[in-house]
């Protein structure tokens, strides 16, 4: 599949002109927030902030699943790794994330069995190979990742693999956006909506944003032309006084999402409250494993009691995630907190706002 047209500088330039023209007609300051770590990176890497008109600000919201994971949940994953005969498996970006007292990387260095896997199916294969160990998969991620975990649990049940379980710390996006638009400290005029979360959930779960709150949203892809097109469509809506949820990423998103994947999620998980770093508990935005599949629920199978969580001193990740503080406005940014020696999650994850600003932005000038 040829994606070169979506990176074509001529098309991009045309869109930038269109964005400038539309923003000029609007005349007022506009804040557009993306809520997907892959968008955070795409915007920073392609220098898109630098080509925006003066009255358009691009903010990064709570779109990095690792960053929004509460310390308490990271502490549970660490405590699981400390149990005898337990192998903790995780996607690589969780390894270095600091909890209250440690990180999975530190635990591994101290001799616990923590392994990076590419897919939950790798964790399932590991469980088959290590029948005397309990293999726990740390389930962090949004709607894009959740169906995979559901499928892995269904596969484990069907194959009778009893030493596989999941620590379910997943989160769902739409209600978090509602919490943001209701937050008096946050001001957002429009949302760049996540591409691959929407591949699964489609466009309908966001429609309340446009209907109840009159905040437009465009589901956007990840190439530079995709992102510019999303921004242009949002500005056009604002200019015309419309608020709708539109899809710019037609090659990856159907209006109804992937109903088959959604049915699998529904079969295995049920909505529970979830604690978001920087935002707090948002009702119904977590996904707990249903009782029917309790045999695959790590915290039911291997109960652990981590010490009470504590905040990371000086870290403003919570404010950064809500777009209230820009990464370079944090006192620790580049002064003690860098990708090599991260203090907070927004600098640890390669998709975190702070890491993206650090790597790709001339923040000295921007500040």
């Amino acid at each position, binding site marked *: 599949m040829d994606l070169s047209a979506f990176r074509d500088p*001529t*098309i991009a*330039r*045309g869109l930038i002109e269109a964005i400038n023209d539309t923003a000029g007609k609007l005349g007022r300051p506009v804040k557009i927030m993306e809520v997907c770590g892959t968008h955070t990176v795409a915007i920073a890497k392609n220098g898109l902030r630098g080509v925006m008109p003066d009255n358009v600000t691009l903010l990064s919201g709570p779109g990095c699943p690792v960053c929004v994971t509460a310390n308490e949940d990271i502490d549970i994953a660490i405590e699981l790794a400390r149990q005898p005969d337990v192998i903790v498996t995780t996607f690589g970006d969780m390894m270095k994330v600091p909890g209250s007292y440690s990180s999975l990387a530190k635990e591994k260095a101290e001799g616990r069995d923590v392994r990076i896997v590419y897919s939950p199916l790798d964790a399932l294969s590991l469980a088959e190979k290590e029948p005397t160990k309990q293999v726990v998969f740390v389930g962090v991620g949004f709607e894009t990742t959740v169906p995979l975990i559901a499928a892995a649990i269904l596969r484990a049940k069907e194959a009778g693999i009893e030493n596989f379980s999941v620590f379910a710390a997943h989160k769902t996006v739409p209600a978090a956006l509602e919490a943001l638009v209701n937050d008096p400290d946050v001001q957002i005029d429009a949302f760049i909506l996540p591409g*691959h979360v929407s*591949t699964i959930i489609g466009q309908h779960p966001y429609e309340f944003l446009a209907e109840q709150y009159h905040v437009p949203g465009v589901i956007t892809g990840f190439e530079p032309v995709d992102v510019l097109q999303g921004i242009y469509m949002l500005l056009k809506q604002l200019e015309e006084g419309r608020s709708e949820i539109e899809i*710019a990423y037609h090659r990856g998103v159907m209006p109804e999402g992937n109903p088959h994947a959604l049915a699998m999620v529904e079969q295995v998980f049920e909505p529970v409250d979830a604690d978001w770093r920087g935002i707090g508990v948002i009702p119904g935005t977590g996904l707990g494993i249903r009782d029917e599949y309790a045999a695959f629920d790590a915290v039911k199978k291997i109960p652990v009691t981590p010490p009470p969580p504590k905040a990371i001193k000086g870290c403003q990740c919570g404010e950064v995630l809500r777009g209230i503080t820009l990464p370079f406005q944090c006192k620790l940014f580049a002064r003690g907190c860098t990708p090599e020696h991260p203090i907070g999650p927004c600098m640890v994850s390669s998709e975190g706002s702070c890491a993206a600003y650090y790597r790709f932005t001339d923040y000295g000038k921007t500040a």
Partner: protein
Amino acid sequence: MCLAIPARVVTKEDANMASVDIMGVTRKVSLDLVPEANEGDYVLVHAGFALQVVDEEFANETLDLLKTLPFFADEAGIDAALLEEAGTDPALVEEA
């Protein structure tokens, strides 16, 4: 984390798995979430699973739509914009 990349389904295999081609690299992925995927289809792959069958026609439609933007609006579309940019010198157009 929610990165997904397009891959072409090469062979459907047992247990709802498939060999896919990701920019020249062959990988095994699960078709649990897209049982309708056929050999030759493009799928979006995320962490060892195909998430969705990609509609190539839709991809092309998006590009056609972009070409109708005011700044590309003349009949020749993007080619004309390119020519203008390059000062209508065909040699420069080649380079661009």
